[in-house]
């Protein structure tokens, strides 16, 4: 029995007949460009917007239930910690609202504060908290009420890279420990790949594709290729293990060092266009995973340029920021150096 079932969900301006099932205890990432309808879908599940279609939590049809009765935890993108309440009372708010007894509330708050390591912030007001602290308090506020479903709307988008990375791991760990059915909205590919059990890609209000991260990124369907570019795929002719966790793969004239744990035969190597570095300047030594090539074609986008680069007989797609392309005056025919990011080389053993 799925934890959440959405049947033919449509909204006035945004969503178009979305059918989706979310399994009990899974972390499903809703991925898509800005304006695709990801937040609207969360709001439908929360009961905050009008919609057509049906929403089930398990076997229970919840369309007529108002938000306060749906027993969900929702962390909005801007968090919306109550500014007039200190951390303790922010967390207590939901517990009081749901009718927990006054005797029970302090214990519940203490447990969730310990879980998120925010006990020392008890008397502080939101204006005196850092970004990461606010994030933890917002999570504590929803976890304290023990929701049956957790909705997270780009909760880390306002944080710097390293803090977001740390909190991402904490969220994943918490979600696993509590086995909480979670929907997580993001437009960030790396975030989606790190967190998701499954990914649902939404583009222009429609559900484009649902599947495991590998499936989504390595074999994006036609509906979502405008948002998720297909990876570069290199067929492996032969390979040899050269050390623990390391192999040398021969793909035609390209010889690459790849992460490799052994097991089934290595058939293909996949790498995303944005995980290949491109420059007119020779990279620093050693020359591992670095090759010379030539730009064959360019396709400008809003913030990046897709370059088709011929390298040792292979045609690769490389994504370059517009600023870099301007600074280096990249154009068709430019000789360039490319560097395959070792950690991002994905070894494939089967057919997807």
């Amino acid at each position: 029995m799925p934890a959440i079932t959405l049947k033919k969900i449509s909204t006035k301006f945004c969503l178009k007949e979305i059918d989706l099932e979310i399994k009990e205890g899974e972390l499903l990432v809703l991925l898509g460009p800005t304006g695709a309808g990801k937040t609207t879908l969360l709001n439908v599940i929360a009961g905050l917007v009008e919609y057509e279609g049906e929403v089930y939590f398990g076997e229970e049809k919840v369309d007529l239930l108002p938000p306060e009765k749906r027993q969900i935890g929702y962390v909005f993108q801007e968090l919306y910690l109550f500014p007039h309440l200190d951390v303790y009372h922010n967390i207590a708010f939901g517990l009081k609202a749901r009718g927990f007894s006054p005797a029970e509330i302090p214990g519940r708050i203490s447990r969730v504060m310990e879980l998120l390591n925010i006990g020392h912030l008890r008397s502080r007001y939101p204006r005196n908290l850092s970004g990461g602290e606010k994030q933890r308090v917002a999570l504590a506020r929803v976890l304290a009420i023990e929701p049956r479903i957790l909705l997270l709307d780009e909760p880390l988008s306002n944080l710097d890279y390293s803090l977001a990375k740390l909190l991402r791991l904490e969220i994943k760990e918490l979600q696993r420990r509590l086995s909480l059915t979670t929907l997580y909205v993001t437009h960030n590919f790396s975030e989606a790949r790190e967190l998701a059990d499954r990914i649902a890609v939404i583009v222009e209000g429609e559900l484009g594709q649902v599947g495991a991260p590998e499936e989504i990124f390595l074999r994006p369907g036609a509906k979502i290729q405008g948002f998720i570019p297909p990876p570069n795929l290199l067929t492996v002719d032969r390979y040899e293990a050269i050390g623990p966790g390391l192999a040398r793969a021969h793909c035609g004239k390209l010889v690459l060092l790849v992460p490799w744990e052994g097991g089934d035969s290595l058939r293909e190597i996949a790498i995303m266009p944005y995980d290949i570095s491109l420059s007119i300047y020779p990279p620093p030594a050693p020359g591992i995973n670095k090759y010379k090539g030539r730009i064959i074609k360019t396709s400008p986008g809003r913030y990046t340029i897709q370059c088709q680069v011929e390298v040792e007989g292979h045609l690769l797609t490389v994504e370059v920021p517009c600023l870099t392309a301007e600074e280096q005056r990249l154009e068709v025919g430019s000789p360039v150096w490319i560097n395959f990011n070792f950690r991002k080389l994905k070894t494939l053993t089967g057919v997807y």
Partner: protein
Amino acid sequence: MFSKKDGRLTWAYWIPTFLFLSGWEVGARLIASPLFPPFSKVIAEFVYLAREGILLKHLTLSLLRVVGGFVLGSLTGVVMGIILGCSNLAYKSLSPLFSILYPIPALGWLPLLMLWLGLSEALPVTLIFICSFFPLLYNTIAGIRSVNPKYIQTARVLGAPPWLILHHVIIPLALPYIFTGLRLEAGMAWRTVVAAEMIAIPTGIGALLINAESLIRVDIIFVCLFILSLMSFGGERIFLWLEHKLTGAWK
């Protein structure tokens, strides 16, 4: 009054006031006119009026009128403001009526109220009620509507019923606006009561003021003006303190 800042006393800030009072004293003595008594004579008259109980009697009456009218007017204004702020139906139904009544200056009601209520205590209290009600009504509506709807959504999703959201989210977040109204009207209430007492009521600071004018007792006029300034200032400071107590930690 005196405080240390970077190790130096800030008594220097009182020099202009001292110079002003000194100038008044010297200037008045030089001019020697009954229309411009020296500062020391004003102080002496203040002491006399206080000692004789005259000041206390009139001040008490004015204060009771201000407090009575202000409390009733602002409470009613806040309650109506909450209703109109939270309910579109109430707002659309009642705001046309309030829009017609609001622009009438409080003292404009005086002739009508004199006929309806006579020269009783109800007259100044009603006037102050009117002058307090409308600003608190509109400030409260503005405060309620300034609350970000996302906080209300957040509260709903956390499971809060409407009354809890009103009590624990909307009203606390609207408090800064409400306190702005209270601070402004604290002074306005005194101005209104003085005007009413000068025109229609034989007791109170306003009556003392107009009697002093008819007796050409400028020293008593200055004493009354000083008392009024103190009362308005004091009222505003009380609300500032209260606002800081209730919202200072988070605003």
